[in-house]
């Protein structure tokens, strides 16, 4: 048995070596993609941990569901049936509208809009770092998910895929401060860029001129510029527009349309739409 008061030697060297190793790895991960393959494969082994971490919340949900009264459930079913009926009525016209839209685009010489395919994914993890807004879902490279794909929910744009493992993907939410989304207003077609506000829940508009034609309540949809997010998906609704005479740009806040704090499902978009040039010719992009 070692003497009770023996100091541990050689600590300093080992500590410095490990710290140096950490700093090197952090830099490699931050500036190069070399570690991405490693994360992708080894990260797949971490999936069980993520799934276990969601169990308490699922248990809490089913626990409260267990106690829901029969009449409450019946009310909920009735309301859902009403909503389905409303939506079916609206989609009846959609086929006709799509067709008319495509014919008019053909007249203008623009290419047809192709419908995107979606893949439903369940959220299995949330980034615990409060300075970041990212979620982890249960579809990965095994399901043909690729980095850069846009992700939506039933209300609007959620974010884009930024990292993959074999069975999971990490999605950067639009509310993360490193994410910027090119949008346009539904009303007038004004093109701006909104960025995540990070700690603030709302999105922030950058470089919007004081004289812009923008009002509180305007819907912002993806403009498709930058060819990251397919165009036409709701992103946010303007909640504040304050032109500031002293500064060149106005202050804009917008509330995201998607339910970013939801914990259930999202839809990953497989964009079959090919990006178009401004003159309307189709560029073939084999994805």
């Amino acid at each position, binding site marked *: 048995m070692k003497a009770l008061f023996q100091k541990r030697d050689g600590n300093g060297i080992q500590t410095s070596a490990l710290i140096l190793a*950490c700093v090197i790895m952090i830099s490699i991960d931050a500036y190069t993609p070399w570690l991405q393959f490693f994360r992708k494969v080894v990260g797949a082994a971490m999936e069980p941990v993520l799934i276990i971490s969601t169990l308490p919340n699922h248990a809490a949900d089913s626990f409260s569901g267990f106690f829901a009264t029969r009449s409450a459930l019946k009310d909920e079913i009735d309301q859902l049936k009403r909503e389905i009926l409303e939506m079916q009525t609206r989609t009846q016209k959609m086929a006709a509208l799509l067709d008319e839209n495509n014919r008019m685009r053909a007249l203008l010489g623009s290419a047809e809009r192709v419908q995107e395919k979606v893949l439903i994914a369940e959220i299995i993890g*949330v980034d*615990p770092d409060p*300075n970041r807004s990212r979620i982890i879902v249960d579809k990965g490279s095994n399901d043909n998910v690729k980095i850069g794909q846009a992700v939506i929910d039933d209300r609007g744009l959620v974010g884009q895929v930024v990292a993959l493992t074999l069975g999971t993907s990490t999605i950067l939410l639009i509310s993360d401060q490193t994410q910027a989304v090119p949008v346009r207003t539904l009303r007038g077609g004004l093109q701006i860029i909104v960025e995540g506000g990070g700690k603030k829940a709302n999105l922030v508009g950058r470089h919007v001129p004081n004289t812009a034609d923008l009002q509180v309540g305007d819907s912002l949809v993806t403009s498709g510029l930058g060819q990251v997010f397919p165009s036409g998906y709701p992103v946010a609704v303007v909640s504040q527009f304050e032109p500031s005479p002293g500064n060149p740009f106005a202050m804009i806040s917008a509330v995201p349309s998607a339910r970013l704090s939801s914990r259930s499902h999202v839809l990953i978009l497989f964009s079959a739409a090919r990006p178009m040039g401004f003159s309307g010719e189709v560029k073939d992009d084999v994805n």
Partner: protein
Amino acid sequence: MAVDIASRGNWVIAITLLMALLLAILPLHTGIPAELGYLRPDWLALVIIYWTLALPDRIGLLTAFATGLVADLVMGSLFGLHALSLVIASSFTLAAYQQVRMLAVWQQAILVGVMLSLVELVVLVVVLLLSQRDFSWLSFLSPLVSGLVWPWVFLGLRALRRRFIN
């Protein structure tokens, strides 16, 4: 016999580290504002510090390093970030373990809080240098909460240690 006890002890330590990891990534319930995430204690650091204090021969820098790397893989942070903070915490603990062991639990709690604040500062500097990300002073609430939680971590893990290892 000594080998049996040693390997069983390692399982217990591994399980406590896994539980700490799960607690660290546990998603907040919907309806709870994300800001409360700043109040999360650093469970991994607390568990590593305890085992380093209790069994400095067995649990040291390499354990901290490996645990940190696993945490980075699970949490998707920059590879090596959690490893860095756990190695620093572990090295501080190893340097002073004999004195820290002598202190009362509440005194240890203060030390833990201060140490983890320093570690948080280092991590903050590294992250700021590398990503120009907006940071929040609220991040420093977490080490304080960790310090507050330390007595319970200490007592709980000590009970486990006495039951399974000694």
